[in-house]
């Protein structure tokens, strides 16, 4: 296919296990919806990743739900969800009309609920399931499943048993043991890792002395967290064999290349779409042009090519 701006015909396709994407650019869950089709043709994307759904309908967090930070933002949207039935009856038919593969993000606060939803969403038209295991596990101590290797392995094992679809685990940076968590997800049968979700943060309005988010704390996203997400992407790609999908602060072509070089096979773009809703379309186009210029035939020639640093060492 010829690129809409540059005319590049470079082959941008990548495989994530059995799933072949026509390019490595896809949205991050919670920052994308059918509304973006107001801005560009969503079929240029490598995949479509929907906002996390939970089984039941839910209201989400109190407002204010977002606030502006330096080089990023905080959000505490929560997971307002119209529930599984709405997804099946309304959303799935809508998204099935696109050629881009559909990735459904799911979550729950207990193992049983998670497993049930995983089985439920394993429907024709769904190309992969992304398990948002960064949400609190209320059966344990309220810590997110993905904060610890044991709870990660538990939940991913349950989900694996419920579906034959490609199953991705979306990890959290709010852990001291990202590599152990990644290995646990792999051991439990995950087909890919999405690295990573938002970083827990907070902001206070000094005039009113109140938190700027209705939920007090929230998730940091945007360029400020890029070095953290890139580090985790590198760590996970080094430690695991399953594909890693980079996510966190990606907004420019350089960012995409940095994550690919670090070992990601694809990337998700979130907050950048809020700053500039045309970002993902532009990245697809720019990646093709860059590959043409640099005479690179396949994205595989970029993935995981990070070298040892040329470091000045001291005795």
């Amino acid at each position, binding site marked *: 296919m010829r690129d809409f701006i540059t005319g590049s015909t470079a082959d941008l396709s990548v495989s994530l296990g059995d799933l072949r994407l026509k390019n490595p650019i896809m949205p991050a869950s919670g920052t994308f919806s059918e509304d973006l089709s107001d801005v560009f043709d969503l079929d240029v994307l490598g995949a479509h990743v929907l906002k996390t759904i939970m089984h039941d309908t839910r209201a989400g967090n109190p*407002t204010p739900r*977002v606030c502006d930070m330096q080089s990023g*933002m905080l959000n505490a949207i929560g997971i307002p969800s119209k529930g599984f039935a709405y997804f099946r009856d309304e959303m799935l038919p809508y998204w099935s009309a696109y050629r881009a593969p559909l990735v459904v993000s799911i979550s729950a606060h207990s193992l049983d609920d998670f497993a049930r939803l995983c089985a439920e969403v394993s429907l024709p038209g769904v190309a992969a399931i992304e398990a948002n295991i960064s949400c609190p596990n209320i059966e344990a101590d309220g810590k997110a499943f993905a904060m610890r290797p044991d709870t990660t392995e538990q939940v991913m094992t349950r989900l694996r048993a419920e579906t034959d679809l490609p199953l991705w685990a979306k990890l959290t940076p709010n852990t001291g043991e990202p590599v152990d968590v990644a290995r646990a997800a792999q051991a439990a049968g995950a087909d890919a890792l999405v690295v990573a979700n938002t970083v827990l943060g907070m902001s206070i309005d000094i005039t009113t002395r109140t938190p700027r988010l209705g939920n007090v704390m929230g998730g940091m996203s945007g360029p400020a967290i890029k070095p953290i997400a890139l580090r985790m992407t590198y760590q996970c790609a080094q430690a695991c064999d399953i594909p890693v999908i980079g996510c966190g602060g990606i907004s420019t072509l350089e960012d995409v290349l940095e994550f690919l070089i670090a070992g990601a096979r694809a990337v998700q773009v979130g907050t950048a779409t*809020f700053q500039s809703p045309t970002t993902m379309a532009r990245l697809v186009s720019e990646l093709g042009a860059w590959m043409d210029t640099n005479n690179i035939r396949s994205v595989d020639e970029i993935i995981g090519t990070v070298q040892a640093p040329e470091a000045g060492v001291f005795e």
Partner: protein
Amino acid sequence: MTFTPTVLPVPAPQGLSLRCFEARCRVISNTPVNGEYRLLVLDAPAEVLDCQPGQFFQLLCPQPEGETPFLRRPMSIYGFDAAQGRLEFLYKVTGAGTRGLATLRPDDAFNVLGPLGQGFSMQDDWQHLMLVARGVGLATLAPLARMAQEKGRKLTAICSARRPELAMSVDLFESYGAEVIVVHDQNASSTPEALRPLIEARIAAGQVDAFYTCGSARLLRLLQDLGAKHGIPGEIAMEQQMACGLGMCQACVRQFRVGDRLIQRRVCREGPVFPIEEAIV
């Protein structure tokens, strides 16, 4: 240094037409209107000028010294003119983003996203319109004046302000043939108690088929009350913190009362204009 404003190139969707665009505009002027407000006039590409009064844009604000606004800032369309390629915003300098806006100089490039949201409606049987607003809310309602004139409706604009000289857009309303009533805090003519008989007198005279409002919780409550009592419909433009402005992130939800149910709606997508009787502040 002048350049031609354009929309950012994007892949065209099949069949469907795009509803909004990220556009690189050129600043024509950016001047103080009175102590607190500034008017930004842009040379904008035709694609973004198919607007409705009440719709808004998301503005990518420049960084003022020492501050770093990150998210776009929502701003109502103050004026638009497709023939002339003009797009106008009237804004109040309040924080980092609007301080950034204030740094824009003629011929600067400026990135806007829009038009966004649902604008005001003007139903066929709304022949006498009454607009009641305060402060920057007047900026949001301003384009209604032209729309009313174009559709041949009568418009009464009650402009509320702290001091009479701060009442905005009076000339603009008058130029489109509206009757303007300025009320202000200094003589207490702007209190709900003072406004109620003023408005009820006009209702009694059959001069109010619909209300429009924006920007004041007190005014909203007054109009909800009068609307319920006299069976007069109306519309309000609401505000909420936003991230995407397009409907994707669910940051901007508010609660609305529809019948006896409370429902959530996104201000950026289902709004910013809502039926007055459903609004909750």
